[in-house]
Every structure is written in C-alpha cells, then in structure tokens.
C-alpha cells in the first residue's frame, strides 16, 4: 500500500498550472479557477493525466463537456498529487450514491474534500481538509424558458421576488439563487433527491448579502456557510459545513 502524506503546510497553496490558477481562499477552503476555453495544447496535455476509466468516460462526452471534464479533472489530479505527494498513476476516483466523487490513492480514500463545477469557459474546484463542501458556477446566459425554470426550481417566496424584477435583474438573481441552491445540494451530496424548490436561500442573500449561515429545513442540526463567490464573468457559490451550528449569525 502506498502511504499518502498530506503536504505539511497548513495553507492549501499549490503551484498554478497552464490552465488553472488560485481564485479565492475562505476559511480553509481553497477555490481554484480552471480556464476552459478551447486550447488543443492544454487539452492534449490534460488528456495525458486521465486514467483508463476516465478515458472511457471521455469518449462518451460531447465536445464541450468533454473539454470541461478533461481540463477540470487533470487540474484536480495535479493539485491532489502535489498536496498528497503522490504520483498521478496512484490516484483514482470513486463516487458516492448520488455521484459525488471522492479521491483514492494507494487503495485508500483520501480524507480530503473537493468539489468541481463548470459552465461555458470557466471551471471552479473547491478544496478543503475540513468538512463537506459544494461549489457551483453558471455563466449568465439568457434563457428561453426562464420563467418555467424559476417555477421548477425556486421556492414560492423566491418565485414571488423574481417575478417582481425586470428581465435582466431577474436573470441575474435567478443565477445567483440557483448557484446558492446547487452548491448546498452538492455539499450535501444528495443530487436530485433533494428538491431545490423545497428550500429557500437565506433572505439576506436574496438581496445583496455575500454570505450567510444556512440549515436545510429537514436537517436543522447541520449548519452550512454559504458564500456568493460570483464576479462579472459568472455567478458562483460555495457552501461548506460548519463545525457547529451558528444560526442567526
């Protein structure tokens, strides 16, 4: 069995790569930006990082998601190899019941949390040595059926607030709320079995708040820190588990 040693540094620093770079750091969570614009040289190099199983999956993707998957997975591999001082061929990935991936090295699950999201030309990887976390990113592309999407995934109060907005503000808030919800669901690791219309984003974050503590209505004992990490290029959110509930913060 290969012994996996965690980088002794307390920080989550890493060497930026050809297509990935630091994006933000918050409370022990490192967020990495992955550039996903077409780049044959980077894509070819990234493909070289994939193992046999990943290359099998690669063949099933359409061109754009294939590029997104390859560049994000290769960046994640490079970061994990550096952090755990292991070789790429010692690293593989498994998945939980609802598809949330985890890393395996030397036959053992690495005690380290990560989550990946991509949209259009941008990807984000969130990494933490502490609790569960989820990240989501969405480019703010105009939607043909925005009102139907809102009806499908937003809670009633959120729907009312969105309906009162002019179109451009509505689109902006839709993506903001959706990334918050998706980050929470990804952190929880339950996939579509958690109905996003069954809970609502914290009221402060439905306005201009950048962060808030959240608990799912059916899981009040677990508290999550929720952060809006979007910028002018995309909407994005991070959710990570707090050690103890801090409701009302």
């Amino acid at each position, binding site marked *: 069995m290969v012994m996996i040693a965690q980088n002794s540094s307390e920080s989550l620093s890493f060497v930026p790569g050809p297509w990935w770079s630091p994006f933000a750091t918050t409370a022990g969570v490192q967020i990495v930006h992955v550039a996903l614009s077409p780049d044959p040289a980077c894509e070819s190099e990234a493909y070289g990082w994939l193992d046999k199983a990943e290359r099998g999956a690669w063949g099933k993707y359409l061109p754009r998601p294939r590029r997104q998957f390859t560049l994000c997975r290769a960046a994640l591999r490079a970061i994990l190899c550096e952090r755990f001082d292991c070789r790429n061929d010692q690293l593989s990935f498994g998945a939980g019941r609802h598809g949330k991936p985890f890393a395996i090295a030397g036959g053992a699950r690495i005690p380290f949390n990560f989550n990946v999201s991509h949209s259009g030309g941008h990807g984000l990887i969130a990494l933490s040595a502490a609790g569960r976390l989820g990240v989501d990113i969405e480019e703010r592309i105009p939607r043909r059926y925005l009102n*139907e*999407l809102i009806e499908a995934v937003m809670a009633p109060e959120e729907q009312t607030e969105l309906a009162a907005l002019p179109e451009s503000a509505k689109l902006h808030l839709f993506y903001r709320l959706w990334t918050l919800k998706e980050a929470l669901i990804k952190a929880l690791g339950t996939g579509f079995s958690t109905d996003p219309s069954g809970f609502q984003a914290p009221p402060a974050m439905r306005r201009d708040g950048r962060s808030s503590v959240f608990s799912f209505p059916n899981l009040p004992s677990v508290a999550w820190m929720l952060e809006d990490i979007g910028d002018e290029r995309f909407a994005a959110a991070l959710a990570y588990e707090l050690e103890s509930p801090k409701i009302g913060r």
Partner: protein
Amino acid sequence: MATTEERIRKLVDENLEIEGRPLGRGLDLNASLRDAGVPSADFLAFTKVVAEEFNLTFSPEDCSRFENLGDLVTFLDSRG
C-alpha cells in the same frame, strides 16, 4: 399513437437546450444528460414538463434515478 420514446424526443426538442442551443433530435437516449452538457436546473424543469405531459408526478427520489432519457422512458412505460 406516438410511443413514449417519440413523445419524450418531441419534448426534448421543444424544451431542452444547452447554452442557448437546442439539444437536437440525434440525441442518444442512453447517453447521460450530464455528459451531454444539460444543466441540472434544466433537467429538473424538464421532468416537470414530462410529468405534465404524462399526467403524473415524480418524487425527488425518482428524479435522482434518471441517468439518461432511456431511464425516463423505461420508468414511464412501467407506469403504463
């Protein structure tokens, strides 16, 4: 009368798009929607359109089982 698969393909054609572009009729029913690049919000909205078309309801657990459109067709056919 149209088969379940034909009805689903028509709904896909009318409702699903990737980054502003229609998904297209050539979609392999056994291909993962995630692999095809369908965002999760769009998939959830699509299941509500399907539920309306077939006059039934999907639980969140049902939705979590649909890896691809083939799974959805099989589920609908099993409901008669």
